[in-house]
């Protein structure tokens, strides 16, 4: 394991300190318990709080700021945060309109946020993101995992909350965005949880893992490595088939947000190549990509690979996607 590390036990705190000091104009760090919050507390809006295991940076700390999250609760690497973090964060950022949790659908995250929700004195609601189509919903009862679509949910709901909408409306929009998102990831290499010190899984030079999770969990299946167009076609088709399975009708000329997300080690050069391949394919299916995001937005430590997320836009989602945002890792209009 070759990483920039002093002491494995201190990675998270040192990294959080670096994050907070690099972005001290935007955020503040609380250490006991750990959370990142806006340095300027927002007033009279639904407080958006997300969180999850670390190792997916910039998710979620990088999305704290105007137009997006009010606070983010980082767990240990690949381990969900604990309820005290969410409760304490809520006490700091709640401003009278309640708390909305945005939680990726993993048993650990769900339970920890659930306990926080039960234990906190504020009106609150939860959006569970579950955009990963690699997990077949009907067969396995925990349901799909939440992956890169979460970034879109956080941005869109963040915008609505900033406009002063109430808890129910924010929750409703978030659920809608989540419903209209589908994602799938492919890993070319594994990743190393620092405390474990060894690769989470083994993968050969001629293999890829289709449907990998963002913790390096095994996915749909191990497949032979092949050319990008063929990998991308399988990914895009998996997402479209899933929309069909979930009875989400896609009409010709529907507007799409296409997110090509790198897990870390895949160069931007390749991410744009993937984008090109996906955009061309969607065009042949008469879908119009009108918004896009290409880069490392939901990572898996040092894994090589990428995920594709499609979000079917409507006027409300598009407007809230376009509105100004000012966070460490997503910024426009400000």
């Amino acid at each position: 394991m070759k990483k920039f590390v002093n002491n494995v036990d201190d990675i998270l705190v040192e990294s959080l300190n670096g994050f907070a000091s690099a972005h001290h104009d935007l955020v503040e760090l609380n250490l006991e318990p750990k959370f990142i919050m806006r340095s300027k507390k927002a007033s009279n809006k639904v407080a958006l709080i997300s969180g999850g295991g670390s190792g997916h940076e910039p998710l979620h700390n990088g999305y704290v700021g105007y137009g997006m999250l009010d606070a983010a609760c980082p767990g240990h690497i690949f381990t969900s945060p604990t309820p005290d973090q969410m409760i304490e964060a809520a006490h700091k950022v709640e401003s009278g309109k309640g708390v909305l949790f945005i939680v990726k659908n993993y048993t650990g995250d769900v339970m920890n946020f659930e306990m926080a929700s039960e234990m906190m004195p504020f009106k609150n609601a939860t959006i569970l993101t579950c955009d990963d189509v690699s997990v077949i919903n009907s067969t396995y009862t925990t349901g799909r995992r939440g992956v890169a679509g979460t970034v879109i949910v956080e941005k869109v709901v963040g915008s609505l909350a900033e406009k002063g909408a109430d808890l129910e409306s924010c929750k409703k929009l978030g659920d809608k965005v989540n419903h209209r998102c589908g994602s799938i990831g492919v890993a070319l290499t594994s990743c190393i949880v620092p405390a474990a010190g060894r690769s989470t899984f083994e993968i050969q030079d001629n293999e890829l893992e289709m449907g990998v999770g963002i913790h390096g969990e095994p996915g749909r299946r191990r497949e032979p490595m092949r050319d990008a167009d063929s990998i991308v076609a399988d990914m895009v088709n998996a997402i479209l088939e899933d929309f069909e399975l979930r009875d989400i009708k896609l009409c010709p000329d529907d507007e799409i947000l296409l997110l090509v997300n790198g897990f870390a080690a895949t160069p931007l050069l390749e991410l744009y190549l993937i984008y090109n391949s996906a955009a061309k394919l969607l065009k042949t299916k008469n879908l119009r990509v009108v918004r896009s995001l290409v880069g490392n937005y939901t990572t898996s430590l040092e894994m090589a690979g990428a995920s594709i997320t499609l979000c079917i836009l409507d006027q409300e989602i598009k407007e809230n996607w376009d509105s100004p945002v000012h966070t460490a890792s997503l910024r426009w209009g400000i």
Partner: protein
Amino acid sequence: MQTEFIIKAAEAIHHAINVNESEIESLDREIGDGDHFINLKRGCSSVLDIKEKISVLSAEEALNHIGLKLLSTVGGASGPLLASFFIAYSQSEKENNLDPVNQTSKSFTSGVEAIKKRGKASTGEKTMLDVLIPVSILLNKLANENKDPLEIIPLIKEVALKGVLSTRDMIATKGRAANLGERAIGHVDPGAKSCQIMIETVCDLILNNK
């Protein structure tokens, strides 16, 4: 139960978890995300950190403190589950006052019920409950039959081990391994294994204390 025994048990569990590091870690690497050992280790250390503080408390209070401590340090799926167990166990100790075997049986069952509720799971889903539920059923049965503790312990250990092994051929329907479908078959559930280790450790401690 004595607070002194609780602390001894915590120390013994800490030791046993460390001894079994590589097995627990690799099980979670195979069908999970590889952090189950680290999560447990963090939990154990944090409990030992408050050893002095809880040593002056009643057993109920100590167990509640342990639950809250686990809740705020372990994280992951196992954190809230184990925490719920201890908090419910403590509650049951407070609310009832039975003979040792019946009390243990009742409190243990309350703990397991809390896990079932929190995790929305039962047996056959390839989780720690495949150890915990059979153990609690057996405990109840033996308590009803007024068995001697020394007689009970070997049976408990046996059932716990059987529970672990039963997870090997299951498809998971809860927790992280649920995403794996058929690929989870052939692998033992890490949480089941670690619960079995903890149960065995406490059993052995009781035996040695006698």
